[in-house]
């Protein structure tokens, strides 16, 4: 599963994207965030408050409840500031 980070999430995690293989049981965006946070370090800082994190699954905005699966592209980022 490809995970991309943007904005201050990227700054805090320290990388822009990575390939991850979350264990069985990590089935949603929210589950992925919790799993990443548990890695500690920059991840723990970036995902300290999950309510601040927005997500996209395969380039579509998705809520934390959205299901994810092997092969998906998941992006995690702060609220967008376009315009």
């Amino acid at each position, binding site marked *: 599963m490809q995970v991309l980070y943007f*904005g*201050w999430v990227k700054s805090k995690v320290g990388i822009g994207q990575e390939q991850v293989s979350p264990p069985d049981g990590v089935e949603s965006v929210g589950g992925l965030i919790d799993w990443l946070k548990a890695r500690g370090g920059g991840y723990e800082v970036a995902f300290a408050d999950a309510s601040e994190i927005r997500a996209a699954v395969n380039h579509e905005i998705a809520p934390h409840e959205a299901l994810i699966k092997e092969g998906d592209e998941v992006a995690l980022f702060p609220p967008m*500031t*376009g*315009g």
Partner: protein
Amino acid sequence: MIRVQTEDFDVGAEIGRITDGNLEIGGLASFLGLVRDFAGDEKISAMTLEHYPRMTEKQLEKLEAEARERWELQDVLIIHRFGRLEPGERIVLVATAAPHREAALESCAFLIDWLKTKAPFWKLEDRETGPSWVTAREEDEVAADRWVRVSDK
């Protein structure tokens, strides 16, 4: 039409491309967003816009489609720049053309409101105190929400 680019754009030329020769347009509304040299009471020397390439075009095309579904529009243009911009530089241009002004004005406001919260861009300001990510404004959520249709809630 959607364009996501690092290069600057020419507002007059872009508007002219929409209106020239189209004798059915009654009004064209536009919004031009610029980099300011301050944020709060701090000076800004530059702003770097990061975006999510494969998603950006998709989201902007959705916004255009949504505007065209809600209003009778003859043309829609969204140009959004990314990369490093200095104060005074153009960031974004939204232009909508319609037979009557109401559709043009409303759809232009709609598009810029939704761009603020639904277009995957993030802004990093170079402040005197160092780089700082622009945080989303509460008012922008409120402004975006007023366009949500009751049936979509």
